[in-house]
């Protein structure tokens, strides 16, 4: 398949764009594979890609119940950052950040990762110290972080209410310059194309309806497109994890599925340079290359598998956006949508072997799934290939909850809606 480049674009333009080939094949399922990955979202696709690229395991199928990338990889607010507090998370997300920084070249697909920075606003000295703690933690793990003060912030973000009269005055902020945004769909498509080019079969409209077992061992999946045997079955089903594992007889997990709404405004000329978050509540906003303000806030806060939220949360998020940028009152909300988050009991993910023989599990992404995509796939592929976790994902076990070895980034405990 042809490399993408400026040259290939010109060449194809001359021939009327008639020679472009599908970005990935649409194969029929084979009877068996070395690895079947359940879930054709960002994590499943990147897992397949790195299995092929890093471990030479190319006899791989990704099975997806709908169209490729139909879940959260195409429903997030596109933020990429590694500004976490706890060392386990910083190491994980820094690993991801490094993969992001070379991802377009690696995939030969422009995922438009733009490192325009993320700024977390602090509104009290206590909150500022919390951000300092976080930024210093990042620096001690080799990450990048800076503290900014109101005058610097005002220069970066014209229109931001930095006045002392604000209900929650800005006292400073934590900037991660390397953070930014990426084009979410491109990540799914780029990984799909990259995996496909290495021989991976991507099977869309192929829903898992059961597991093939030999004794305790999982030896394949039953799908709407027939049975597929596999030496290893890897689950990367995000918000649907519970539903998939129930098919394997696992009824309980430290996971709840919740809806997170996201919002985009009409297109505007550039007004926000990077990603900015508000500390008076919970609000994050950036501006897409097309010009829309892309933003979101809290979860609706109840279990759901429906990709739809309700009005009170919409009103809350809009109010918070205007508390930051009063000038946006006349800007119009264009679209909203919901994604189903697999919220874990400590706000951190699970990437592990098991819980059944022949099975591997990747879930619990909470709000962090999109930015985690490269590292999640990279580490999950490692775990699948070697039957053991890499040192970076070793802490992200399934049994850590019962054992009390928690990675509680927000300190909220077993209350998934608060993570």
């Amino acid at each position, binding site marked *: 398949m042809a490399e993408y480049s400026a040259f290939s674009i010109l060449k194809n333009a001359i021939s009327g764009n008639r020679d472009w080939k599908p970005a990935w094949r649409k194969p029929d399922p084979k009877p068996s594979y070395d690895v079947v990955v359940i879930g054709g979202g960002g994590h499943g696709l990147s897992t397949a890609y790195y299995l092929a690229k890093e471990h030479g395991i190319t006899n791989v199928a990704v099975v997806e119940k709908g169209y490729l990338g139909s879940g959260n990889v195409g429903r997030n607010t596109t933020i990429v950052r590694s500004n976490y507090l706890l060392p386990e998370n910083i190491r994980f997300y820094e690993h991801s950040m490094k993969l992001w920084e070379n991802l377009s070249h690696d995939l030969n697909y422009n995922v438009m990762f733009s490192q325009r920075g993320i700024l977390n606003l602090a509104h009290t000295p206590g909150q500022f110290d919390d951000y300092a703690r976080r930024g210093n933690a990042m620096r001690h793990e080799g990450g990048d972080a800076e503290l900014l003060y109101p005058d610097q912030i005002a220069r970066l973000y014209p229109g931001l209410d930095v006045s002392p009269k604000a209900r929650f005055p800005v006292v400073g902020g934590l900037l991660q310059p390397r953070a930014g945004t990426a084009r979410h769909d491109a990540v799914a498509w780029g990984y799909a194309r990259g995996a496909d080019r290495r021989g991976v079969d991507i099977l869309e409209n192929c829903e898992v309806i059961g597991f093939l077992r030999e004794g305790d061992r999982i030896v394949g999946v039953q799908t709407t497109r027939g049975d597929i045997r596999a030496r290893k079955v890897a689950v990367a089903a995000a918000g649907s994890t519970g539903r998939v594992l129930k098919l394997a007889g696992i009824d309980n997990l430290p996971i709840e599925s919740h809806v997170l709404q996201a919002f985009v405004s009409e297109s505007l000329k550039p007004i926000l340079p990077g990603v900015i978050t508000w500390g008076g509540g919970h609000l994050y906003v950036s501006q897409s290359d097309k010009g829309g303000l892309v933003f979101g806030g809290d979860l609706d806060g109840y279990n759901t598998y429906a990709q739809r939220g309700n009005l009170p949360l919409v009103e809350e998020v809009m109010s918070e956006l205007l508390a930051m940028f009063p000038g946006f009152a006349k800007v119009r909300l264009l679209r909203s949508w919901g994604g189903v988050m697999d919220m874990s009991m400590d706000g951190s993910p699970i990437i592990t072997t098991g819980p059944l023989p022949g099975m591997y599990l990747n879930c619990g992404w909470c709000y962090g799934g999109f930015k985690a995509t490269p590292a999640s796939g990279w580490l999950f592929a490692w775990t699948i290939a070697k039957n053991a976790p890499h040192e970076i994902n070793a802490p992200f076990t399934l049994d850590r*909850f019962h054992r009390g070895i928690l990675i509680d980034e927000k300190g909220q405990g077993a209350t998934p809606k608060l993570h």
Partner: protein
Amino acid sequence: MLITCPYCGPRDVSEFSYQGDGNRTRPDPASTDQAAWNAYVYDRINTAGDHKEIWQHSGGCRSHLAVTRSTLTHKISHVAFARGGLASVRPAGRDHGDHA
């Protein structure tokens, strides 16, 4: 979403606080069965379908309600006081606004 509080009547979801999975039973306080405690604290059934869950009418009478609600459609089929025995309501299609 509209939740019919047995005490206050049908009220908007914004008056309520979600208090999570209502399928769990807390072990006896004196129990030292660690596995039971771990399951109570961390494990969730996370049903795709009718889900029993606890909501507090925090912007109203502050009662805790045991609500059966579909996590696929958000339709509520049953509401009762969580402490039981007092009253329960099965919201009618019409005043609830859902298509029966």
